[in-house]
Every structure is written in structure tokens, then in C-alpha cells.
């Protein structure tokens, strides 16, 4: 979109909507809900939500769904997949049902929370939620000491197409992770390249936060860009993009081998391990991201990477793996912090860093670029930013590689 500056109006496709919900198997299965309430108990905002998933389903079945749609309760859904992972009936709550409800709720609200609206508008116009210049998407490579090829400038085939995503491209702490990733790929001798200014947000938060049209717009752009180049594998640094490519882009022609960066590096660990020569002496606790962990079950790979770094001891938080606690940034939550604060809710990232503090770790390691800034902010708010630092797993690897 940003490249052309105009909205495309290409063919619509058969999409599941609230109206046609029951004509899809995922929709019909909702009718089998046994009202056990597991979803409410596991929802990070279940205690403050007027309509948690259990009640929404019952309102749908009894014809009172309008009440749900006229409340803003479902804005509390941070797309953490906890309810979906725990549901004994295997209902597609986070991936299908709740975004449809949220779409209707937001279209009825007299005003969309302004930070959220701005993020959506920015993503449409600039291809990133921060509203940064799309031309500067690869500006971070100027401060990276290793060579990075941009396919637009040098379109030769590449082994790995590294999909960098928005936060690694633009957020100052994300750029630290981007530089660390480039360093690790370089020392491994990986043949990699990036899309630079042609890359746009994959759009996953657009859909899970309700904006299916925005998602389609971004998907069409990104698919067209992928088609321009030859590569063997797409490796993305963002679990949200990974989720989008795997579960939605695939239905629209994305058939490239796909990996997230941490699992990709775990796959070449025998080659990486001898390069990890610097001892770090860190006590590390790892936060499983909702998208990478709970939704895609990639739990062991980041832990394998951490274990390979000399001097790193891993300690687990009370909630880990399937039981991980959400940072609060998914499903649009990244841009609803002010809204949640006005409601008086506890910030989920603060809840999570309290668990990290309780382990006695001095590093909170993550794999999702949203989490670095969220957890660093939470630690500062709680006054513990000197006791625990937040690092992407790949930043720790780069540190372990040494100079």
C-alpha cells in the first residue's frame, strides 16, 4: 500500500463473518460449548470482563448477542490464545470467534480509542503502526557492522529471506535485536537478504484486533512483493507475522518454507554452538510469547538456544509454556494501554514482570519484539529496571558470540 499510495480493490474472497458463522465448521462447533467457564478462568482479563468468551457464546445461542456487541467488553481480548488452548471442546475462540465479535463492537463504538485508531491508520498509510516513513524501514542497517543485502537493490536469489517486521525495523530497542540478528546470521555464514522498504507489516494484529480489510490490504501487498524474488526460506523475527503467514497467508498462496528466527537458529545449533565463546554469567528466565508458544507450540527452541550460551542458567517462571501469561500486546492491546488504564485494569506486562522478579533472574528473555519495550516499561514503572534487564534471545546469542 505505502509503495503505491492507493488502496487496491481486488477480488473479495469467501470470509467467515458473524452473519455466516454457522455455515462454517468452526462456527457450528461453538454451539457445542459446555459452559464450563475454563475460558473465563484462564483469560488474563477474565476477572474484569463483563462478557468473557463463555458468556458471549451463551448470548449468541440465546439471541442476546446485541448486548455483547453494544458493550466494549471484548476490547479486553488481547488475543493470547489462552481460552482457545484450554477449551475442552477445542473451540476456535481466539483465532476465529472473538475477532468477529470485536469487529462488530468496534464498528458500533462512538469513538475508537485514539491510540488504536492512529496505529491502524498508520499501518494502512505507512505499512507500520508507528507512522514512520516506509522509506526508512531499512535505515537501521547503516548502524549495523555487518553487510546486509536488500533485494530491491540486489535481486539475486537468496537462501534466507529475512522478514524483519515493524518493531525490529523502527523501534530503537527492536533495532538492537535486528543488529544482533544480522550479526548472528553473518557469523554463521547464512546467505540472507531483506526486503527493505518493500516490506510492510504482516497485519496479524490488524485481523485479531478486528480490521480484516486492513489485513487483506497488507497481505496482498506482501504476497506481491514475495513473488518478485527467489529465495528458499522465509525467516521472520516476529511471531505475529509468523502466525499470519502460517495461518492466513497460506490460504492465499503463501507456500514458502517458513520459520521464526529463534527456531531457525536452533536448527543450526551444531554450527552455532562452537561460535558461542563468551561466558555471560546470567540467570535467565524465558517468557513464552502467546503467538510463538501457545499458538505455535515453539517452546523448546528458544530454551535450547539459551542453554547453548556459556554461563547461562535458565529458571522458569510460575506460568510458562502453555500456561504463559500474556504481555498484553496482542490483538491490538499494544495500542490499548491507555484505554486499559482508564478502565483501572492491571497492566498485564506488569503482572508478568512480577513473576520474572520472583524467580531471582537477572535477565528476562523474550522472542517477540513487542515484549522488549512492554517489559522494559513495566520494570521501570515498578522500579525494578536495575534488577532485571530484558533481552531478546538473539541479543543474548550475539553477546555470547563475542566481537
Amino acid at each position, binding site marked *: 500500500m505505502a509503495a503505491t499510495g492507493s*488502496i487496491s*480493490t481486488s477480488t473479495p474472497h469467501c470470509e467467515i463473518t458473524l452473519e455466516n458463522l454457522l455455515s462454517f465448521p468452526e462456527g457450528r462447533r461453538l454451539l457445542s460449548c459446555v459452559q464450563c467457564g475454563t475460558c473465563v478462568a484462564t483469560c488474563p482479563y477474565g476477572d474484569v470482563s463483563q462478557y468473557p468468551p463463555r458468556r458471549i457464546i451463551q448470548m449468541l445461542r440465546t439471541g442476546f448477542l446485541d448486548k455483547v456487541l453494544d458493550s466494549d467488553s471484548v476490547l479486553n481480548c488481547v488475543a493470547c490464545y489462552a481460552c482457545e488452548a484450554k477449551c475442552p471442546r477445542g473451540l476456535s475462540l481466539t483465532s476465529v470467534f472473538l475477532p468477529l465479535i470485536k469487529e462488530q463492537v468496534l*464498528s458500533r463504538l462512538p469513538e475508537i480509542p485514539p491510540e488504536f485508531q492512529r496505529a491502524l491508520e498508520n499501518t494502512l498509510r505507512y505499512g507500520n503502526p508507528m507512522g*514512520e516513513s516506509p522509506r526508512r524501514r531499512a535505515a537501521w542497517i547503516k548502524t549495523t557492522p555487518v553487510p546486509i543485502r536488500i533485494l530491491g537493490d540486489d535481486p539475486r536469489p537468496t537462501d534466507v529471506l529475512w522478514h524483519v517486521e515493524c518493531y525490529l525495523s523502527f523501534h530503537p530497542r527492536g533495532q538492537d535485536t535486528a543488529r544482533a540478528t544480522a550479526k548472528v546470521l553473518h557469523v554463521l555464514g547464512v546467505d540472507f537478504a531483506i526486503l527493505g522498504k518493500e516490506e510492510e507489516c504482516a497485519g496479524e494484529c490488524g485481523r485479531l484486533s478486528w*480490521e480484516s*480489510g486492513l489485513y487483506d490490504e497488507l497481505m496482498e501487498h506482501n504476497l506481491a512483493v514475495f513473488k518478485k524474488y527467489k529465495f528458499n526460506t522465509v525467516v521472520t523475527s516476529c511471531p505475529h507475522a509468523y502466525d499470519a503467514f502460517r495461518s492466513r497467508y497460506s490460504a492465499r498462496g503463501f507456500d514458502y518454507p517458513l520459520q521464526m528466527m529463534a527456531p531457525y537458529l536452533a536448527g543450526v545449533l551444531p554450527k552455532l554452538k562452537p561460535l558461542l565463546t563468551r561466558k555471560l554469567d546470567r540467570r535467565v528466565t524465558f517468557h513464552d510469547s502467546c503467538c510463538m508458544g501457545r499458538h505455535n507450540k515453539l517452546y523448546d527452541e528458544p530454551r535450547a538456544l539459551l542453554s547453548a550460551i556459556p554461563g547461562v542458567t535458565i529458571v522458569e517462571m510460575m506460568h510458562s509454556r502453555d500456561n504463559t501469561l500474556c504481555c498484553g500486546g496482542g490483538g491490538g492491546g499494544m495500542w490499548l494501554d491507555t484505554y486499559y488504564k482508564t478502565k483501572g485494569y492491571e497492566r498485564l506486562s506488569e503482572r508478568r514482570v512480577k513473576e520474572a522478579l520472583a524467580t531471582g533472574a537477572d535477565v528476562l528473555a523474550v522472542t517477540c519484539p513487542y515484549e522488549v519495550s512492554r517489559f522494559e516499561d513495566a520494570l521501570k514503572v515498578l522500579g525494578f529496571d536495575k534488577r532485571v534487564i530484558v533481552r531478546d534471545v538473539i541479543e543474548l546469542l550475539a553477546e555470547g558470540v563475542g566481537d
Partner: protein
Amino acid sequence: MKTIVLFRMVPDIVEELEVASDGKSLDREYLRLMLADADNHALEQALIIKERHGGTITVLGEDEPGMEETLFSALCKGADRAIKLNSSPQAGTHARAHWISKGIRETPDLLPADLIITGAQAIDDLDGLLAPMLAQFLDLPFLGTITRLDVNPATGAGTALREFAGGVRGEYEIKVPVVIGVQAAEKPPRYVPVAKLRTIMKSRRLEAVQISDGPWIFPVSEIRSMMKPQETTQAEMLAGSPDEVAAKLAGALLAHGLM
């Protein structure tokens, strides 16, 4: 109630502005245009009035990059007609006001209108001259820097809240027809779901209106050169202990007659 909302596109300053090689225009290679922020508020205020009292809204803008999508977006939000005017061959706010007034007069079924609303300012019209000049060309009264507006469609009488410097506000009685310059709408401009925009771009059409060049009844301005602001070295960094810095600061404020 018949309302016309006027749109203008301005450079998007997310990209750095560069002077083109001719030395008198902006380099268009990377320049993107966007709707002037206050014009977006002008539409929002018109929509609020339509929601209160009914009526129709026509949006009108010159044919510039990005204008079509902006007009479609206005249709999504609730505008009834969208008109794309061929763009003015002359530069400058004076010429633009004249051109748009011609466009309004020559578009079928547009006049008489009750409210003609546009943004009070734009980044290429910081003096906020477009709306008052337009009012002059249309021979209508004008009121600018408005932050609230309402009109009773039965009587044509209404009220407008105008902002002054220093937080002072004044409530004005108005009578349609009138040209209004909106500083900010009563609430932030609404969001357009992209799916809705994509649908409306397929199902609706914009009206294209062509008006002829001239006669220009006033001397048109010409851009002779364009340059970036010159860097100056006027800043003075105050150093020392907090007390010393405070004393130096107070001295500087006194020396410049600011205290």
C-alpha cells in the same frame, strides 16, 4: 441542510521535504500528499451536524495524488456526493480560493448551499486565508477557527464556538449560508474500516468536474525560488550549576525584554 466540505492535499511530512532541481518546487519523487488535518476535522464536524439534523454533505477537492481515495473515504464516513475538480493551473492560496469558488459555482446542483466548511489552516496555508478568500469570491460571510458548530435547519440560525489565543473562546450566532473554517471538530475524526473503503471504491463513483482556466481577475503569484530554512547559530547553551544557569536564564530573559 446542504453542506459542502472542501478538501486540500498537503505534503506528508513523515518524508523529509526536498527542493526539486528547478529550485522553486518540492521534489515529488518521494513526496506523498495527505488530506490537511483540519479538513479532516471539517468533514467530521459536517458529519456530526448531519447526524443531528439530517441533510446532505458534498465533498469537493482538486484532482491531486491521493485525492480520489480521500473522497471515497469521505463517502464511507457518510458524505453523499464526492466531486473531483480538475486542479488549478495557478499556485497559491489566492488562486486556489478562486479556482474552488469557480468549481462550486459550476458544479451542477451544488448551490445554493447552507454551510461551506473547510479547515481553518493547512501546513501550506498557515495564515488560514483559504476560507475567508473563498467567502469573498462567493460573496458569503465567513467565520474561522471554529471548534463547535450547530445550525437549526428550520430557521437557518446557529451557533459557533471560536477559539482565540490564550484559551479565550467566543460563542457566535450565525445565519446560513456561511463559510466556516474549522480548527477542530467536536470529537476526533472517525475511523474508516478498510474493508468498507474497499467495497465503496468498487460500488461508488466520483463525479469529475472540469472547469476552464481563467480569466484570473487578480494578479496570480509565482514561486520564484524555494529553499530550506537556513541553519543559524543563534542558540546559546547555558552552562554551570543550577543556580548559575537560573541566573543566566533570568538575565537573558530580561535582556530580551521577555520578563
